[in-house]
């Protein structure tokens, strides 16, 4: 046996040295590319007179926006235009997410229905929607439907309360009357007492086993108490209905056609995906679970509520959140039909006018990244708390 120590092989063959070398190489490559890019950018931007600061933020915008949730005029700054666009994007998300969820769950349940025809109808819906480009749907709703509606003078109307024309959908705009304070107060009391009753009912069930009809009582409270206020003091809300004035409708709550098209398109499109997620989630719960629940004597409703749906919701939640994120990202298609969302206003008009390309794109992408990150973090927290343990 050779008693001399083995010759040390070249340090180039050392695993750790190699790994370090690869990483340094990669980082160097990235650094070169990034540095080269920045250098070129600075040169090009100087040559074309493109601003390199954020100074444009406080310059006057000079353009109008037809939907603004905060005060805005063409004398406002680009910065303000940014906030208007951001709020409009969030508004679309806020409206479309609950509507798409509702429609998606309805269609998903229809997909699972034992009635063959209903399940096939739902299948046709999801198949068509998932294989049609969203842009085509938006263009269809906007160009073919909404823009070809008649003018304000020949509006289609529902009982002369709701009006539909090519300037938009006009709904009654609620305003509060004096008794509204009592009404809202009663509504709050009703909700609090319904929740209270539910908690008390649970406590009582724990102690005595008797089950209280909490759902019915809650419904009765939430409907009944505010109804008392209406009976005593009349309807607490008035409605401002749109009226024809000259060539246009004035008053009421106007929903511009761009927004209507975007909402219709996004909701019907995303609902199809949500329906498939709901269906997959429910089917993924093993059939043995509902059999075991039935074998224990739980009837169908209880079996669904206590055993199947809690498990299905755990499976449904992650892809569902991903669809919510898609709604926010897909709302950027607003730029094709002129809805004034963040991309249309900021990465569109503002970028064109100021030529501050790098700054504008950076800010826009940062906003969406922040939203994605926030949702991902919330989802991780949810998973940590509710994921099935031991698996």
């Amino acid at each position, binding site marked *: 046996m050779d008693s001399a120590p083995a010759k040390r092989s070249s340090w180039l063959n050392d695993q750790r040295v190699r790994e370090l070398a690869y990483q340094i190489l990669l980082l160097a490559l990235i650094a070169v590319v990034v540095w080269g890019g920045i250098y070129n950018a600075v040169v*090009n931007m100087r040559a074309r007179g493109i601003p390199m600061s954020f100074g444009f933020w406080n310059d006057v915008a000079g353009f109008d926006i037809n939907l603004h949730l905060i005060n805005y005029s063409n004398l406002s700054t680009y910065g303000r235009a940014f906030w208007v666009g951001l709020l409009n994007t969030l508004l679309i998300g806020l409206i479309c997410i609950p509507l798409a969820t509702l429609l998606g769950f309805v269609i998903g349940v229809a997909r699972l229905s034992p009635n063959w025809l209903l399940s096939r109808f739902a299948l046709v819906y999801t198949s068509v929607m998932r294989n049609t480009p969203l842009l085509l749907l938006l263009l269809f709703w906007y160009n*073919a439907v909404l823009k070809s509606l008649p003018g304000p003078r020949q509006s289609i109307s529902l009982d002369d309360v709701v009006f539909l024309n090519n300037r938009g959908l006009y709904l009654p705009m609620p305003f509060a009357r004096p008794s509204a304070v009592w009404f809202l107060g009663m509504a709050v009391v009703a909700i609090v007492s319904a929740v209270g009753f539910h908690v008390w009912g649970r406590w009582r069930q724990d102690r005595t086993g008797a089950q209280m009809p909490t759902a019915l009582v809650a419904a009765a409270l939430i409907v009944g108490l505010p109804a008392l206020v209406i009976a005593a003091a009349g309807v607490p809300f008035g409605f401002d209905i749109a009226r024809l004035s000259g060539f246009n409708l004035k008053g009421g709550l106007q929903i511009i056609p761009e927004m209507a098209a975007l909402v219709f398109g996004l909701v019907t499109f995303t609902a199809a995906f949500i329906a498939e997620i709901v269906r997959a989630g429910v089917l993924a719960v093993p059939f043995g679970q509902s059999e075991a629940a039935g074998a224990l004597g739980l009837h169908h409703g209880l079996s669904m509520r206590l055993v199947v749906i809690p498990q299905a919701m755990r499976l449904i939640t992650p892809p569902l959140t991903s669809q919510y994120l898609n709604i926010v990202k897909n709302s950027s298609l607003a730029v094709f039909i002129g809805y004034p969302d963040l991309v249309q206003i900021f990465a569109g008009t503002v970028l064109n006018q100021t030529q501050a390309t790098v700054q504008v794109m950076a800010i826009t992408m940062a906003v969406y990244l922040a939203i994605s990150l926030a949702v991902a973090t919330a989802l991780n927290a949810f998973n940590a708390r509710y994921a099935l343990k031991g698996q």
Partner: protein
Amino acid sequence: MDALTYVRKAPAPEEAPPLLSSGALAWARTNLFSSIGSTSVTLGCVALVAYLLPQLAAWATTRAIWSASDGAACRQHQDGACWAFVVAKWDYLRFGSYPGAERWRVDVTEAIGAALIVWLLWINAPRRAWGAFLFFVAYPILALILLRGSSWFGLTSVDTQLWGGIFVSLLTAVVGIVFSLPLGVLLALGRRSSLPAVRLASVVFIEFVRGVPFITILFMANNLLPLFVPETWTPDRLLRPLAGIIIFSAAYMAEEVRGGLQSLGRGQYEAAMALGLKYAPMTGLIVLPQALTLVLPGIVNNFIGLFMDTTLISIVGATDFLEAMNNAIKDPVWAGPTIMVTGYAFAGIFYFIFCFGMARYSAHIEKVRAKGRM
């Protein structure tokens, strides 16, 4: 029979099930009429179909105008589709403004591409590795020469601004897949790497691209790319959205491939390492072929999504099929109330057939694979 012991003397005969419990009647009873609610739903659905379907069918067929030279006939008969419009515009919808005499080049490129794709997707095809090389390496070069033109080969050059229609939609989607698949594989391997810098770079890239809307990537490619490269390299106007598509698709492809790599199981890696294979041969010969076959349905689904996303490139000035349709609809010769609906309906049918067909194929692969495993 005796309560405690029993031995069967004669086998019980097989009998036919009672009438109402099997066959068409039984199926109808459980699936259509099992309860009052179910029955009313069935009747409602049948009524709906009976009302709508004949109307739709008539609009599309019996009341439609199938041939005309301008919009007059369609303006007269507004209760049917104006398919004559689609027929008249078909060349533009297919090729955009690509010069008429050179259109054969587009057809040839598409035919070769289709053949290569069939070769690659047919699971049991011989020598698929050759097909992969041809598709990912040789075909792009060939396509570039044929489509763009090159005086070396005696082909007149055709500016990319003239390209349009179905041709551009297919081109964009295929280019997207061809380049995003290798890039996605690299990103997926990078994300699973044990080297922290590599993993970080991959994660940052993937999460950044997946976290922003596709339109912003297109804007970035269109507006920022010219800024970050020297003045003389100004990228072609079609190349910019193509770059955006490749980047966007690569991030999603990376996640698909990563799923496949994860589901492969440690056993494969361990067997390869025990045989003495180093990282590159192990990945190239053992891991990737299996992982990619595993996620083939997912890759096809990505392709479908990509094909639908190509509709967005019109925002940066490229003319895809939908944009071509939009342009065609504006033609004053054909103006009329039914033109827009006809155009959009045709576009919808086109996308649906293409995407639904690919989706069925992907489902078919999964079924075949599931059978093979059982």
